[in-house]
């Protein structure tokens, strides 16, 4: 609505002003980082971790603003509409790539309306089951699921959630339509998995690692090309016989399209510095993930990741025929 009210003249003035301000050295005031999810969630946690270190490098505070709603599309929309002056940025996860397919009347284009800054981290996922689920290893697990596709139940944390995306991939990989049970968020889904009310789930290591270590749930495979340091006994999906199921919840930072190149470059440098910090690495390590290497924390790498993932998920979602709008 405020787009209509904002006159073209004012916008022009703002852009001129922003550009002249940049000449004097970006950033010269605080930056707002929109996290399109509620405070305290996993994405918010990643955002706050990284914002703190980037602030140190930039010499200006990065404020995290949580604009939750509609699977992250409301917050992303807000950044797409924001002034392209480098003072409003977005931290979003894999949902940036699935939104164009999941939301059929999305009002923004993740590729055209944003300028990528860089990848932050890629969180691996694990295929887990209730603690007393019968199969002993990955191979017998896959066989069991195929044989009992009509009785096995699979939880997810809602349409578009990482657990939902991974669930769709899993069903394609085992080629069996499993009964899916959605929950409102990871918390309730994990509770019912621990309580044995539901059989299996595929979720981020952030949510599963401690439960696996504590023995409250059982794990069968991890969705990375290599085994994880924190769960060394867990086979990869390729080892388990589920090729093509490599998937991670990747997080990236974006600015609105049209943001001056100086600002993008400065942000990208700050991101690389933050990711090289051993404290950030150890805190991300606690979450079961690692900082992206410096060559991935660049606009080109994020651009490539985003485009590739949009194309990867489109057929998966279309085949499942589930949309979030």
């Amino acid at each position, binding site marked *: *609505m*405020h787009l209509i*009210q*904002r006159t073209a003249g*004012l916008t022009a003035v*703002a852009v001129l002003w922003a550009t002249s301000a940049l000449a004097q050295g970006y950033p010269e005031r605080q930056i*707002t980082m929109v996290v399109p999810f509620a405070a305290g969630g996993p994405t918010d946690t990643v955002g706050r971790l990284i914002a703190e270190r980037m602030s140190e490098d930039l010499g200006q505070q990065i*404020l*995290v*603003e949580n604009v939750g709603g509609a699977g992250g599309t409301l917050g992303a929309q807000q950044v797409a509409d924001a002034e392209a002056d480098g003072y409003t940025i977005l931290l979003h996860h894999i949902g940036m790539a699935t939104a164009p397919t999941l939301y059929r009347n999305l009002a923004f284009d993740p590729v055209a309306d944003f300028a990528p800054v860089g990848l932050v981290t890629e969180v691996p996922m694990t295929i887990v089951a209730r603690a007393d689920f019968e199969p002993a290893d990955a191979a017998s697990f896959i066989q069991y699921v195929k044989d009992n596709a009509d009785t096995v139940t699979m939880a997810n944390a809602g349409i578009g959630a990482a657990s939902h995306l991974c669930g769709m991939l899993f069903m394609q990989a085992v080629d069996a339509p499993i009964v899916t049970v959605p929950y409102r968020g990871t918390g309730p889904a994990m509770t019912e998995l621990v309580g044995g009310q539901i059989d299996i789930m595929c979720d981020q290591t952030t949510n599963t690692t401690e439960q696996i270590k504590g023995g409250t749930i059982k794990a069968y495979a991890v969705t990375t090309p290599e085994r994880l340091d924190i769960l060394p006994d867990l086979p990869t999906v390729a080892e388990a016989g589920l090729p093509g199921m490599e998937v991670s919840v990747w997080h990236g930072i974006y600015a609105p399209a049209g943001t001056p190149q100086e600002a993008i470059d400065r942000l990208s440098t700050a991101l690389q510095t933050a990711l090289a910090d051993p404290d950030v690495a150890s805190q991300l390590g606690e979450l079961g993930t690692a900082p992206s290497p410096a060559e991935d924390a660049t606009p080109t790498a994020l651009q490539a990741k985003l485009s590739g993932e949009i194309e990867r998920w489109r057929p998966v979602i279309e085949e499942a025929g589930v949309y979030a709008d």
Partner: protein
Amino acid sequence: MRKSFDPTDALAGIVFIAFGLFFGLSSLLRLDIGTAFRMGPGYAPLVLASVLLLLGVLILLSALRTAPEPVTALAWRGMLFLLPAPILFGLTVRGLGFVPAIFLATLLAAFASPRMRPWQAVVLALAVTVFSTLVFSYALGLPFRRFGPWLPV
């Protein structure tokens, strides 16, 4: 029979009937109902809307047999100035910024009372603005932009 008719209850019944129709018809027209064993998104709303419709009718019918109760005056002035205040805040907070938006919203709300004199309203709005800017923006560091892009500040 005419004498014992309570217009308040009758109106309440009509309001419930209207809500029942809105939810019921939207469910029927736009949503998949499904069956009791495989419920679609429209199943629960349709059932609830039907119950609401029925309750509305019952309330309307019982209103025809009840003695009316006195109706007090409506707060027209209150509605005129109070209800638009949060809307004004919402429309201006992103464009004008937090500081002007909260000032304008408080000023508008203040006129809902006939006892409020214009100078009092301005002083009150200023005080609220200063207080909330200090508390929310500076002390708590909430990510509100104090002055927005519509202002050349």
